[in-house]
């Protein structure tokens, strides 16, 4: 779609677009190019010179059990976060949709966690499950379960998943709720008259009608759990224990800033670049088309 009426001149539009272009070049494209360039080199320990190694950094990464483990961890983490944030959100949205009065109040209450930063959410959940003072871990202890996410990798993963999914429930709830409100009531009533009970109506009518929203949320939540959960992991586990919660983005940070391994960190950035590219393409190709049966 293009405008038919336009203004003439070429200097003014260039000046108008310049701020965005300059910032993109300086803070987006130059650093990205730099990451690609550096991924082919290994700097010497003093940072004075670097040696060209071709795809050496990549070959090393893909043979590195820790990096391969980080791929697996990221996959498990993002699948769990997506499920743990979408299922409760759908459940709450279905309930809220059945209420005519009061759904506004509930909605306001449920929006709160969205505004809480992932890093702050991490601190809140860390506090509840803290091995020394945590309320939940204390009650678990009374029930005979010895909670210790500092030593137990599985529990650490569980905690970062729940803390990451928590704020997303609000987000997913808003989208599911809006989609449910848009389902034509006449269709539902027709099914009800035909004797279809609630669950049958839900599975055969409502859920299929929600498929565009569901698919959109699947993609968006995977992107979220890849790139926006750094704060949660950094505050709760710091990637541990034994790297059991080290996801790809966390590893770029840990290797680049803590470990000062520039070549490897850059190569990891380039790999992530491909991952984002892929996810963006999926998002545009499928979400734009609006999956509909």
């Amino acid at each position, binding site marked *: 779609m293009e405008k038919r009426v336009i203004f003439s001149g070429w200097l003014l539009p260039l000046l108008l677009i310049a701020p965005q272009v300059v910032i993109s070049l300086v803070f987006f494209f130059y650093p990205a190019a730099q990451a690609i360039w550096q991924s082919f080199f290994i700097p010497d320990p003093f940072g004075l010179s670097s040696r060209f190694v071709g795809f050496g950094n990549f070959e090393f990464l893909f043979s590195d059990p820790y990096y391969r483990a980080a791929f697996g961890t990221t996959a498990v983490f993002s699948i769990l976060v997506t499920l743990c944030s979408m299922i409760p959100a759908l459940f709450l949205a279905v309930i809220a949709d059945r209420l005519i009065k009061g759904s506004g109040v509930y909605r306001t209450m449920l929006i709160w966690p969205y505004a*809480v930063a992932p890093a702050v959410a991490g601190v809140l959940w860390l506090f509840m499950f803290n091995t*020394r003072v945590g*309320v939940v871990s204390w009650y678990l202890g009374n029930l005979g379960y010895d909670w210790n996410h500092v030593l137990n990798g599985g529990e650490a993963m569980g905690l970062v998943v729940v803390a990451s999914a928590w704020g997303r429930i609000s987000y997913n709830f808003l989208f599911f709720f809006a989609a449910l409100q848009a389902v034509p009531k006449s269709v539902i009533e027709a099914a009800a008259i035909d004797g279809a009970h609630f669950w049958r109506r839900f599975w055969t009518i409502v859920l299929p009608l929600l498929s565009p929203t569901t698919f959109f949320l699947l993609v968006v939540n995977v992107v979220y759990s890849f*790139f926006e959960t750094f*704060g949660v992991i950094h505050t709760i586990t710091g990637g541990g224990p034994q790297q059991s919660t080290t996801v790809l983005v966390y590893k770029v*940070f840990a290797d680049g800033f803590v470990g000062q391994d520039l070549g490897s960190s850059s190569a990891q950035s380039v790999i992530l670049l491909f991952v984002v590219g892929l996810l963006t393409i999926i998002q545009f190709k499928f979400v734009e088309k609006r999956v509909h049966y």
Partner: protein
Amino acid sequence: MASERHGMVEKRGAGLWLTHVFMILGVLVIFFPIWLAFVASTVTQPEIVKPPMPLWPGDHFWENYTKALFSGVNVPVSTMLFNSLVMAIGIAVGKIVISLLSAFAIVYFRFPGRTFFFWMIFLTLMLPVEVRIVPTFEVVAGFGMLNSYGGLIFPLIASATATFLFRQFFLTIPDELAEAARVDGASPMRFFWDIVVPMSRTNVAALFVILFIYGWNQYLWPLLITTDPEMNTIVMGIKQMFPSGDDVADWPVIMATSILAMIPPVFVVVSMQRLFIRGLVDSEK
């Protein structure tokens, strides 16, 4: 089922009651972490370190919040709040301004490189700060912008999303308005200020809500470039309040800080709920 026959799809009587109970339970579970943080920010340290801590607020609210705001752990929380405010507003306003300008250029002009720049802006979508942290850090350090507001704001300010949103919106502005402005001899910038900007008000407000929260909740970037506690933002500063080693954390002050860290974004979201939902849905389209 009787209620099904009467109400068809809307629950009534016992069913309605049960629906409310489920909803309230859901809200309570979702809300519990925030409640617990609030309770912890109103009691004393000994009450927390001897579990289980109380589940009802104590009477040390003023004491804990005053301590957090004016002395904090490394730096007073009021300083961190101010830094966060500057960063969040800087990012939101900056993104909106540069996106309004570039979208206006793309929609209302034909100039050399237009398509090229459009795709360039589009590609920034694929470059989140997380995939370019080390080199971006080097660029910012090279400009001497570590520990500065400029360093906190500029690397996050280019936004393809906002540009596309405004482009979509500008395309719906009737051509007659631009035609009339041209006939009257108004300059493009005059048209921009008097017609385009006022018409975009709702979009700008909706986007502001989303971008303010985006900026406020940043963690990784401030963590990298603010080594001076005076420049810490509140969201990244909380983690810095935990002692290293075996010392016991000052939980009441840390929890008071957590509550303070969520008040501004929660206030923005709840008070501008309709704009927020609109902004959310628009920016994901």
